[in-house]
C-alpha cells in the first residue's frame, strides 16, 4: 500500500511525533505491514524535479494512489486564492493540489487537528483563512466538500490530535492496509474510534482527586485540574492516559491540563487555556453525558467526604500524606 504525504499549513509536529513510534521503530513497523511512502516531505530522498514528476504521475492516474495523507491545515487566503501556501516549485497552491489529488486516492487521511478541523492555525482571527481537509471547525465542508468520499467510499479519516500520538497514525495506516477500517470504525467527527472511544480522563493519575473534587489551585499541584485550571479531560477524546506518550507521559501526568486538542475548535476555548470558566462559582462544561444535578449532588457529597490525605496532597506538588498502612489485627 502506498502513501503520498503532504505537509500543508501546520508545524510538522505530527511527523516529528510519528518518528517517536516504538516497538518497532516507524520505518520497520510500516515496512513490515507493506506500507511504503511514495513521497514524504521530511523523509524521502526525492527532491525538486523528481517530486514534480511523481506528483504529475499521481495526478494523471499513471501511479494509482492508495492513501493521501495530509498534515497541516489548508490555507484558503488571501481572498480565497490559497496563495498563503504555494507548494514550492509547482506554482500551485496546496489548496489546489489537495482538491486535485484527493479524488484519485483510495483513502484520504487528515493527520493532526490542523488537517482535520483547522486547528491552531485557525486560532485568533484566523489570519490565513485556514480550514481542515473536510471540516472547518465543527462544520462539515472544508477544503473538500462536506459530501466528499474517497474512492473507498469513506469520508476523510480524521486522525485528530495536537500533535497526534504516533500510534494513532501508524495503527490507522495498519488497519487500512489490513482492510479493517470501515465507516463504523469512525466517530461522528471522522476520528478512528480505537482511540476516540476513550476519554483523556480514563486512567488519569488524578482520578482519585476527581472522585472527591479535590482540586489543584495552581499548576504543578497534584489535585484535579478541572475545577480551576481549565482541564477538559473528562470531555476530551483520546487514550492519552491509557497508552502514554513518549514512554509513560501525558499532559495531566506532567501537571498541566488537557486542552481537548483532539476536538474541533480547541484552539479557541473562549477563556485562557489554563483557567476554568465558571458561572456562579460552578465550572462551565461538566462531563458531557452526566445529568448536571446529579453531578452537583455527587460533588458536594464527595467533597464533604474527602480524606485528609487527598485534601492535602491535592494542593501540594508532591505526595505529603502517604496512604495509611492498615495495621494487622493482633
Amino acid at each position, binding site marked *: 500500500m502506498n502513501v503520498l504525504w503532504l505537509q500543508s499549513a501546520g508545524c510538522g509536529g505530527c511527523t516529528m511525533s510519528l518518528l517517536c513510534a516504538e516497538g518497532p*521503530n516507524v520505518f520497520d513497523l510500516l515496512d513490515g505491514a507493506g506500507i511504503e511512502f511514495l513521497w514524504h*516531505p521530511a523523509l524521502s530522498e526525492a527532491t525538486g524535479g523528481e517530486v514534480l514528476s511523481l506528483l504529475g504521475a499521481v495526478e494523471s492516474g499513471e501511479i494509482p494512489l492508495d492513501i493521501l495523507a495530509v498534515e497541516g491545515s489548508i490555507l484558503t487566503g488571501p481572498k480565497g486564492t490559497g496563495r498563503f501556501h504555494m507548494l514550492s516549485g509547482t506554482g500551485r497552491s496546496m489548496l489546489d493540489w489537495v482538491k486535485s489529488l484527493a479524488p484519485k486516492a483510495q483513502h484520504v487521511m487528515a493527520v493532526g487537528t490542523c488537517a482535520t478541523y483547522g486547528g491552531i492555525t485557525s486560532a*485568533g482571527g484566523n489570519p490565513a483563512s485556514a480550514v481542515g481537509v473536510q471540516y472547518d471547525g465543527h462544520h462539515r465542508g472544508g477544503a473538500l466538500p462536506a459530501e466528499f468520499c474517497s474512492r473507498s467510499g469513506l469520508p476523510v479519516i480524521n486522525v485528530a490530535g495536537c500533535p497526534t500520538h504516533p500510534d494513532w497514525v501508524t495503527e490507522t495506516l495498519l488497519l487500512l492496509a489490513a482492510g479493517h477500517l470501515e465507516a463504523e470504525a469512525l466517530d461522528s467527527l471522522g476520528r478512528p474510534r480505537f482511540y476516540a472511544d476513550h476519554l483523556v480522563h480514563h486512567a488519569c493519575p488524578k482520578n482519585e482527586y476527581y472522585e472527591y473534587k479535590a482540586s489543584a489551585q495552581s499548576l504543578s499541584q497534584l489535585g484535579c485540574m478541572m475545577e480551576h485550571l481549565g482541564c477538559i479531560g473528562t470531555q476530551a477524546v483520546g487514550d492519552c492516559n491509557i497508552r502514554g506518550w513518549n514512554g509513560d*507521559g501525558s499532559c495531566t501526568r*506532567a501537571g498541566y491540563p488537557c486542552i481537548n486538542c483532539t476536538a474541533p475548535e480547541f484552539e479557541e476555548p473562549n477563556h485562557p487555556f489554563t483557567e476554568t470558566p465558571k458561572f456562579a462559582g460552578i465550572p462551565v462544561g461538566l462531563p458531557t453525558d452526566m445529568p448536571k444535578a446529579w453531578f452537583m449532588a455527587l460533588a458536594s457529597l464527595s467533597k464533604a467526604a474527602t480524606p485528609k490525605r487527598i485534601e492535602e496532597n491535592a494542593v501540594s506538588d508532591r505526595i505529603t500524606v502517604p496512604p495509611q498502612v492498615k495495621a494487622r489485627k493482633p
Partner: protein
Amino acid sequence: MSAGDLLVGPFNRVEGDLEVRLEIEDARVKAAYVNSPLFRGFEPMLLGKSPMDALTITPRICGICSISQSAAAAQALANAAGIQPTPQGALIAALLHGVENMCDHLTHFNLFFMPDFARPGYAGRLWHERAMARFTAMKGSALRQATEARAQLLHIVGLLGGKWPHTLAIQPGGVTRAPTARDRIRIGSTLTAFRRYLEDVVFGAPVEAFIELTSTNELRAWTRGDAGLFIEIANDLELGRMGIGPGRYMSFGAYPQGNARSFGPGVWEDGSVRPLDTADIREDLSHAWMLGEDAHPTRGQTAPDEDMSEPGYSWCKAPRLAGQTVETGAFARQLVDGHALANDLATQGSSVLARVAGRLLEIARTQLLLERWADAIVPEKRFLDEVTLPNHGEGEGLVEAARGSLGHWLRIEEGRIAGYQIIAPTTWNFSPRDGDGTPGPLEAALVGAKVEPGEDTPLAVQHIVRSFDPCMVCTVH
C-alpha cells in the same frame, strides 16, 4: 525567470516548505533567491489574548523546535513579570530543552542531511556503498538506529513534560512537574543508554574524545563511527569549501540558569567575540510580502501583503543586526562559546563541513550537559513559583533552538497581548534581500555552488541548504 534559471522545489528533508530560485552562469550559481512560501500568521493570532496563552500557542508554531518556542515564550513572560524561574525549575527547563536540541541534531544528521550522499549521483565514490547501507532515506541502518535512540531519549520529555512535541510544562516560574528521586534515576539511566548509542554508533569513541578536537586537521583525521564516514565524504567532496557564509555569527546563549548560560551569548566577527545588543536588531521588509515599516521587534508588526507584490519574493522578513546579516546555528554557538575546533574551522569561514561538524561537536558537549543537569536534580526543592503578570509591560525571551537564535518580544497592555513578534533562527539564515540589496546568509552561501550538466536540483545546492538545518515553519510562523 530567464532560460538559465532553475526553480528548485519542493525542497524536502527540511522542516517545512522551501523554494529556491537560482540564476546560473558558467555552471555555477550566480545568484540565489530564497522563498519561504507559507504564511500562517501566529503573531497577529496572539493579539488580544491572555499573555499566558502564548505558552499553549507558540510551541505549535513548530513541531521540531516546539520546546524552544515554549522556553522563549516562558522567558518573555518571566521577563515582563520581572522574575526568574526557581533554580530547579530552570534546571528542568534546560534538561527538556537540551533533549529536544539533541534530538533535532540527530534527526538532521541522520534523516535530513546524510541521505543525499546515498544518491546514485555519487555512485563509484569509495564511500558510496557504505553511505547507501547506512543512510539511504527511510531504509538505511543508521536512520533506524537514530530513530530508536531518539525515541528513547524523548522518554525524558515524556516523564518531565508529558509529551513531545507541544508540552505545556515550561512556565515563567519553572516547570509543572516536580520530579521524584525515582524520576531522577530513570533520567540517568536513559542518558547512560543514549551515551552508549553515541559512542558505539555516532562517534565510535568516547564523546569526550570528540570534544577534545582542537583543529580542522584533527577533525579531518577522524575516522570512527558515522562521524568518520561523514568526514571521509567531506574530505573527498571538499565540503569545507562549499557554502561559505557571511563570516558573522550570533548566539543568544543557550540554557539560562540564573544569570549564566551554558553556551555563552555574543557576536563573533574577525576572530573575536563582542557582546550582543538586541537593541541593534531591525526587521527589513523591503523584499518580504509584508506591509509596514522596518522596525525593532518590540515595535514591529506583521501585516501580510495579500497582493504579494514585487520586489517581494518571500513571506520571510529580513532581520539584520546593526544593518548586517549574521549566521546562527550550532556552529555559531560553539564559535561564540569559544570552542577551539570551531575557532579553527572559522578561519576558513562557515561551510557545509563547519556547520555539520559544529552540530556533531554540540551533540557530544550536550551529552555532558544533560548528564550534569540530571545529577543536579534535587527532588526536595521547589520547581514552580506562581507568577503575577503586570497589566502593562514588555518582555524579551532569548533562547537557542537547535538551528540557532530564537527571540520572542511581547508587549502587554491592559492585561492582554498587544504586541508579539518572533524572530526564528531560519528567519536570520534564510532571509531575503534587504533594502541595500544584500542577500541573506543562505542566498550568499549558494553563490558559486556547482551545477553539473543535466542537474535540475543541483546536489551542491542541496548540501548547502541542508547544512543550515533550516526550519521553514518557524521562519515565517
